[in-house]
């Protein structure tokens, strides 16, 4: 009654030959997913290093040197992102989104930090994306150009999603808080107030979005509020001390008791 051994007649069974093609399709997808996870991991590590490097701007004389070193690190990251874009050529980005979202968020954090240091403003999503257009000449092998995504002909385009952008910016606030602490220590009297103003704007922006965004965004709100409180404390102290003596004499004047106590929470 039992049917013949199935392994012996793969070719003759339409069911089995259909499953042979399923196998190929599934393996191919899985492998691509794994490659993307690895790229994301590399991007995360290198972006974190860039952020660490950027914090040196508060303590070195030549800011431009740090910025250009960061720029070249970020170029390396973007090369990895172009590899992601290459993998996604002709695919639906969202099918593999979970594989690379951590890396992209960390990249947004790094690039928006660099942008703030240079321009004292928030990099926009459009600006982030405009740096992720990769020209074909970067890669020698000539692929079928009909498979190219939207964008200039011959170019490869990667689009950061608004949510990834938001999550990256939320993490940026932790770095800004850290930078505020550093810059107070280096006699820079303007940066803390600029940071306070900037952080407050970002905070108000996030509270404008409130719980309409995805859950991951709401989760970061608490840390963001903590960072804001610390920077506001810093400004408060500078102002109080500033009333005691002539303003031009102020330097290296900062400590926050609150911050001292719960510094450990703020580490994002």
């Amino acid at each position: 009654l039992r049917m013949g051994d199935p392994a012996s007649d793969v070719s003759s069974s339409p069911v089995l030959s259909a499953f042979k093609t399923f196998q190929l399709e599934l393996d191919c997808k899985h492998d691509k997913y794994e490659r993307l996870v690895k790229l994301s991991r590399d991007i995360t590590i290198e972006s974190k290093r860039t952020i660490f490097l950027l914090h040196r701007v508060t303590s070195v004389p030549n800011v431009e040197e740090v910025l250009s070193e960061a720029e070249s690190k970020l170029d390396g990251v973007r090369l990895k992102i172009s590899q992601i874009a290459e993998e996604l050529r002709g695919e639906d980005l969202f099918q593999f989104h979970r594989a690379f979202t951590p890396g992209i968020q960390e990249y947004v954090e790094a690039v928006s930090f660099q942008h703030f240091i240079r321009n004292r403003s928030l990099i926009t999503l459009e600006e982030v994306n405009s740096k992720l257009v990769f020209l074909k000449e970067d890669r020698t092998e000539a692929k079928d150009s009909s498979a190219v995504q939207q964008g200039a002909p011959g170019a490869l385009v990667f689009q950061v999603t608004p949510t990834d952008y938001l999550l990256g910016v939320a993490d940026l606030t932790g770095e800004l808080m850290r930078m505020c602490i550093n810059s107070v220590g280096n006699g820079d009297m303007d940066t803390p107030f600029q940071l306070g103003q900037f952080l407050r704007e970002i905070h108000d922006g996030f509270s404008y979005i409130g719980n309409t965004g995805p859950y991951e965004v709401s989760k970061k709100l608490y840390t963001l509020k903590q960072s804001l409180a610390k920077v506001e404390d810093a400004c408060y102290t500078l102002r109080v001390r500033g009333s005691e003596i002539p303003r031009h004499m102020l330097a290296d004047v900062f400590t926050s008791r609150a911050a001292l106590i719960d510094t450990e929470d703020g580490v994002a």
Partner: protein
Amino acid sequence: MSVTDMFSNIQGFLSADQDIREDIRKVVQVLEQTAREILTVLQSVHQPSGFKDIPSKCLRARELFSTVRNHIGDLKTKFPVDQYYRFHEHWRFVLQRVTFLAAFVVYLESESLVTREEVAQILGIEVDREKGFHLDIEDYLAGVLIMASELSRLAVNSVTSGDYGRPLRISRFINELDSGFRLLNLKNDPLRKRYDGLKYDVKKIEEVVYDLSIRGLTKDPETAGDK
């Protein structure tokens, strides 16, 4: 662009995204309702009296599938065609359900495995992602596995109804399906979990066949006639 403008833009994007999801959810809800109606029609085959008019039940289900096609047609208009996977989770479950129903109808009609192409046609969708709203391979396979479990129940109940030939045919069918799945390299994902369930269905059906054969109940004219 000021920070405020930036966040207004993003808020605009998020609102639009939520609106899309809301729209999708509504269509999915009516689709689920229709799926439950088809299920009620098809599940009556498990009743003692249900084996008599399988053809008429299939006909009725086929009619209801035209409603399914309308709902899915509606669903397609709710989001940009190339962002299928962005919203996939919303319809994934119901798509697997209707795939199961399509596979079950086809099995009841012809005792053969529905192909991905046939399901796509019954649902009015595509097989290739590039061509439009499509049937993901995992969803197709999940639907097929739901059917396998339904067939193991059918094997049991056909014995209760005195139809002793059907379990043997189901057994052969399920075995072939099992061989097919064994070719796949499944990860530790939902599909793998479902596939593990298939093994129980295989065993269950084989047990029924065994019960019949040791009692000599497989020589019954009705079954012979079916072949």
